[in-house]
């Protein structure tokens, strides 16, 4: 499903009433369109300008940042903030950590959720009802309730400061399982029966039928999980105290300590942290939005 369709050409007002998404637009009533455009343009300004301001500030030398607030565009843009933060803080390692953690979370979540979702949707086995109830019941548990015992559990295992400890909380999330189950239930049983007759076993059905047919749901789950994993904060903050293992978010959040009012550098760090996701977003913006829409809007229909 696409969220945007081709816009109507606005010049053809002379013809009979045109329908725009259920709203009439005759030649007399063009002002709703203009009003809508106006509101949306203001919205664009509101939602984009903070990033632009932050970016410009990061390009200013320290002296200029605190000189005057009316100079938005830097008079002599400099990269010194970026260079300084890059040299003083292990940003590259933090980015690598975040990539590792996010990749691991997304991969194992998708793997485990599709397997379990498939079993819960199409499987016939004893205890299926109980298992399903268990999954739905676990959806209710907010992660925060679990953090103290999980912290103790991880340290008892000796897994403090490891990638596994960070990842494991997110991989255990039942949301994806529920979502994949809902999706797999829409696949007709006849397809599976035909495959069985052809000699496929359970696992082959998984790879040859279930996964290929689930591509849109998989994409959606991947995007959703990735955004969630990339932004993970509280749990890594708790379980990791070694600077080498910080994910990016924790690393830059803690920069407010050493860099308290050094806004040039703080903002440079923030911008650098935003670049990976921003690039991915600009390249695949449609996928991001549809990922969220399918996860949520799918239920609404």
């Amino acid at each position, binding site marked *: 499903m696409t969220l945007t369709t081709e816009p109507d050409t606005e010049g053809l007002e002379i013809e009979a009433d045109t329908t725009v998404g259920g709203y009439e637009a005759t030649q007399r009533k063009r002002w709703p369109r203009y009003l809508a455009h106006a509101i949306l343009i203001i919205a664009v300004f509101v939602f984009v300008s903070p990033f632009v301001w932050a970016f410009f500030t990061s390009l200013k030398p320290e002296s200029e940042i605190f000189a005057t607030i009316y100079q938005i565009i830097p008079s002599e843009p400099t990269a010194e903030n970026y260079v300084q933060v890059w040299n003083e803080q292990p940003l590259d390692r933090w980015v690598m950590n975040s990539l590792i953690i996010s990749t691991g979370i997304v991969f194992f979540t998708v793997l485990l959720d599709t397997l379990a979702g498939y079993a819960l949707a199409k499987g016939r086995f004893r205890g299926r009802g109980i298992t399903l109830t268990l999954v739905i019941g676990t959806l209710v548990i907010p992660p925060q309730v679990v953090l103290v015992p999980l912290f103790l559990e991880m340290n008892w295992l000796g897994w403090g400061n*490891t990638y596994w400890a960070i990842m494991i909380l997110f991989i255990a999330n039942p949301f994806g399982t529920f979502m994949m189950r809902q999706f797999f239930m829409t696949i007709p049983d006849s397809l599976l029966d035909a495959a069985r007759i052809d000699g496929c076993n359970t696992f082959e059905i998984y790879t040859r039928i279930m*996964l290929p047919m689930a591509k849109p749901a998989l994409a959606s789950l991947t995007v959703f999980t990735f955004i969630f994993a990339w932004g993970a904060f509280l749990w890594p903050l708790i379980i990791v105290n070694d600077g080498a293992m910080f994910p990016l978010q924790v690393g830059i959040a803690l920069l407010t300590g050493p860099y308290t009012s050094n806004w040039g550098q703080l903002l440079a760090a923030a911008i650098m942290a935003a670049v990976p996701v921003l690039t991915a977003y600009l390249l695949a913006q449609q996928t991001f939005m549809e990922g969220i829409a399918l996860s949520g809007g799918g239920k609404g229909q």
Partner: protein
Amino acid sequence: MNTPFVLQKLGYSAQNEPIIGGALIFLIAGLSIGYLAFVRNEMNAGIVLKVGSVLLLAFAALALFWPQRPWPH
């Protein structure tokens, strides 16, 4: 072979060490996606999955040969 100990060792990499655990994760992910994308034709894998699997393997190499950047301060 003390499995828990090995897992623990894999999961942590100090300041300038090669990130073995990370490389392992990238390797597993890259190989699996690669398998689905290139071997399993039913997947009809688009360019995203194919490029993605190659990218993941590249990251595995990057993590393994993580440049020994002198630790800041």
